[in-house]
């Protein structure tokens, strides 16, 4: 595993004009921040949508200012949940941890001056931006946003507006957006992989890479293999809708007593294509969070990561197995029941590398000297949420149990904890950890702690009771509970969850205020405010245009050399030569 000599590195001079410096920049750091801000905008929209949904679920007839018509209709509720899921999964959980932080820190952490393909990197961002524009525009087209859920099952999504408002223009906008997003993500994945393989500094062997780099690398491989499939599926669905093809539409469909002019397609084919992407996607969302959690836990426990190799291999194993379990989303779909066996056992076995990671996180903390800075609080929160959310997956992975719990709120609770909130905690940990490096200023620690307490308690108050609603048979994606008495009986829990959701959403103001205030007014950050070891902390805050101001590092040791016996300081950066360690 050799690395390129740095003499071969060509860094274009820093741009001086506004447009090339801040807008159409090819600097990975600017692009990383652009992705992060895009995610920040998207998460604001996503939270707003969820607040509206939680409001409607408990006060279905109340007047709501933002809603056309004043009172929310069932189809508007479905549009909200569709757009909430889509925006959160694609434009927040995929962009912020991978494209945002990965873009900014992967090259710096491996000692590279930029991504391997800077222009492609710029294109990835701007295509993603256009995709977001299409997605948000879906709210404003005739019929409004689509209502078929983020999974967009056909034929509901394949027949146009006869199956519901929003299934005309809105669904088309959605599909165009997703196709563009997939294209952008493919370019991004290619870039991450090439960069990790080719641009590592001398001495930066694979087994010396920070676990964040491992996470971004494995995630990029997943993205490369997964997004292409959804891209193809999305194009085929667009053809079904507009060109009269029938990839996903069988013969004899009858809507409004009229037989539809389609034949030969399979609704299950869409589900297979979607989930072949969709399951790896949940690991695309969570793996970077795992990397950040490992990185931050080690730094603030002042201890090397427990079982570094096992952590790296576990991420590879999760990524590999992640491609063989998509069928667990389809146990009740009518798929051949024999495949339920295979998908179930494979899914249960993903619990193994996940358990290894949890065990090793606890092992990292064990015997440490733990400093409870805000990034650390969110990393600890990540571990707790990941355990809570992951364990409910063991129920859903068994088809016999899934055929009771499928499509109940139990599933909603499960995936929100494990891939939603846990991943968001990873993003917050990363933000509080790297903000000083990215913007040269420290964030306010008190506001950050209040943000943590409210968010940690709040998310558990939202999503723990949600399991109980699901166990009682509460159905997701119902705009109101009037269909059955037992659903009405669960409304009390919904009140509790809604109140918790409003409080938690409001508590995010702690973060936004802190973020924007600290950008301007935060105390100036030193090069290495956390006494950390990896390469981003040996350069300026923020780093120079070429990341290291011409002094490219060589690497002499692993990424988490904390509390080394005999050393004067309790951390040894990766670029310190063996004979230069102060004793």
């Amino acid at each position, binding site marked *: 595993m050799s690395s390129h000599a740095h003499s071969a590195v060509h860094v274009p001079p820093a741009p001086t004009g506004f447009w090339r410096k801040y807008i159409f920049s090819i600097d990975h750091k600017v692009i990383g921040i652009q992705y992060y801000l895009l995610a920040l905008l998207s998460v604001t929209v996503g939270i707003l949508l969820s607040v509206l949904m939680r409001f409607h679920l408990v006060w279905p007839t109340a007047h709501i200012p933002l809603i056309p018509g004043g009172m929310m209709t*069932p189809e508007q509720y*479905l549009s909200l949940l569709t757009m909430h899921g889509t925006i959160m999964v694609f434009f927040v959980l995929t962009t912020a941890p991978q494209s945002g932080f990965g873009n900014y820190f992967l090259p710096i952490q491996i000692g590279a001056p930029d991504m391997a393909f800077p222009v492609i990197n710029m294109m990835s961002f701007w295509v993603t931006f256009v995709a977001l524009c299409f997605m948000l525009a879906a709210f404003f087209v005739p019929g409004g946003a689509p209502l078929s859920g983020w999974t967009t*099952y056909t034929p*509901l999504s394949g*027949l146009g507006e006869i*199956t*519901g408002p929003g299934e005309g223009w809105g669904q088309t906008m959605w599909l165009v957006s997703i196709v563009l997003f997939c294209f952008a993500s493919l370019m991004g994945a290619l870039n991450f992989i090439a960069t990790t393989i080719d641009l590592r500094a001398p001495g930066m062997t694979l087994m010396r890479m920070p676990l964040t780099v491992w996470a971004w690398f494995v995630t990029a491989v997943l993205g490369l293999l997964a997004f292409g499939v959804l891209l193809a599926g999305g194009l085929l669905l667009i053809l079904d809708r507009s060109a009269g093809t029938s990839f996903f539409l*069988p013969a004899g469909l*009858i809507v409004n007593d009229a037989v539809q002019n389609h034949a030969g397609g*399979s*609704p299950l084919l869409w589900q297979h294509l979607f989930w072949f992407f969709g399951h790896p996607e949940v690991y695309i969302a969570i793996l970077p969070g795992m990397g950040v959690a490992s990185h931050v836990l080690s730094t603030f*426990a*002042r*201890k090397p990561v427990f*079982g*570094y190799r096992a952590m790296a291999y576990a991420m590879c194993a999760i990524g590999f197995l992640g491609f063989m379990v998509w069928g667990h989303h389809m146990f*009740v779909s*009518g798929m051949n*029941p024999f495949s*339920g066996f295979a998908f*179930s056992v494979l899914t*249960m*076995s993903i*619990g*193994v590398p996940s358990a*290894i990671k949890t*065990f090793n996180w606890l*092992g990292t*903390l064990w015997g*440490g*000297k*733990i*400093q*409870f800075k805000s990034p650390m*609080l969110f990393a*600890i929160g990540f571990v*707790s949420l990941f*355990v809570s959310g992951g*364990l409910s997956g*063991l129920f859903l992975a*068994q*088809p*016999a*149990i899934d*055929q*009771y719990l*499928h*499509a109940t709120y139990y599933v909603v609770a499960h995936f929100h904890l494990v891939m939603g909130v846990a991943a968001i905690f990873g993003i917050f940990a990363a933000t509080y950890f790297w903000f000083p490096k990215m913007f040269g200023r420290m964030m306010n620690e008190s506001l950050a702690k209040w943000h943590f307490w409210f968010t940690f*308690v709040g998310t558990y108050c939202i999503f*723990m*009771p949600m399991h*109980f609603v699901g166990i*009682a048979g509460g159905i997701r994606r119902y*705009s*109101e*509970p*009037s*269909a059955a008495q037992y659903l009405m009986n669960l409304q009390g829990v919904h009140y509790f969850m809604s109140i918790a959701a409003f409080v938690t959403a409001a508590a995010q103001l702690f973060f936004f205020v802190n973020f924007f205030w600290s950008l301007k007014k935060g105390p100036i950050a030193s090069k290495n405010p956390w*006494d950390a070891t990896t390469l981003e902390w040996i350069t300026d805050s923020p780093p120079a245009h070429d990341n290291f101001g011409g002094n490219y590092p060589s690497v002499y040791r692993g990424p988490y050399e904390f509390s080394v016996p005999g050393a004067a300081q*309790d951390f040894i950066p990766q670029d310190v030569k063996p004979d230069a360690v102060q004793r």
Partner: protein
Amino acid sequence: MNRAAKGSAVTPAILSLLLVLLVVITAYVFASGNFKAPPPITEIGKQVDHQYALTLVVTSIVFILSQLGLAWVIFRYRDRGQKAEYNHGNTKFEAVWTTATIVLFVGLGLMAHHAWAVTHLQAAGSDALQIEVTANQFVFNFRYAGPDGKFGRLDPKQVSASSGNPVGLDSADPNAKDDIVVPTLTIPVNREIELLIRSQDVIHNFYVRELRLQQDAVPGMVIPIHFTATQVGRYDILCTQLCGLGHYKMHSFLDVVSEQDYQAFLKQQASQ
């Protein structure tokens, strides 16, 4: 950052306490039994509940140990001015932990398959009562073969909910003449039922909590499921697959009745 000073004990104390509370409250709500599935009305339903209980035991142990372990470790090893241990892991521990989880998780997964196999891999008995379930936006219709015991042909072109032929019985087929089509599902107790589930337009789902059964209705497919209900009563049938704006009100009833009541139901329907 001043590393000479000890860290405050307040933050780790609060965080540990919250984790302990999380465990206590969650365990209490599970134990209280306020939220649970209604009693199952099939043998398979009981097996599903058994497997659920087993999984709950395993996951509870892992949940309690890891959350309390986390609470303990962050409080015990908070910064008190000590020096952190320098170690890179313990291969023996990791191997034991990995093996234990493989046995536990995969073993649990393998045990779950009986209940699944009986419902989905074994065919229904030849004397099972067949009833066809047709879903469309946003209603269920249930078709019985009628006195002749034969389902008539269906013709998509003749589907017309407004003129009383929601499933599209073919008027040219004599077998279709006596077919019974009703909006609620009535079945006799203690007799094996085979449902043939289909959809006319988009994907729907047939869900009855007490059967512990959820099955998508997919256009272009006829999906069989079978069960024997052992408890007379009225149960909710809900659509659980997002099917459009009326999804939330797509509802019907499963009436499990005695054999006499079932015969009376058939007689009454046949006379209409």
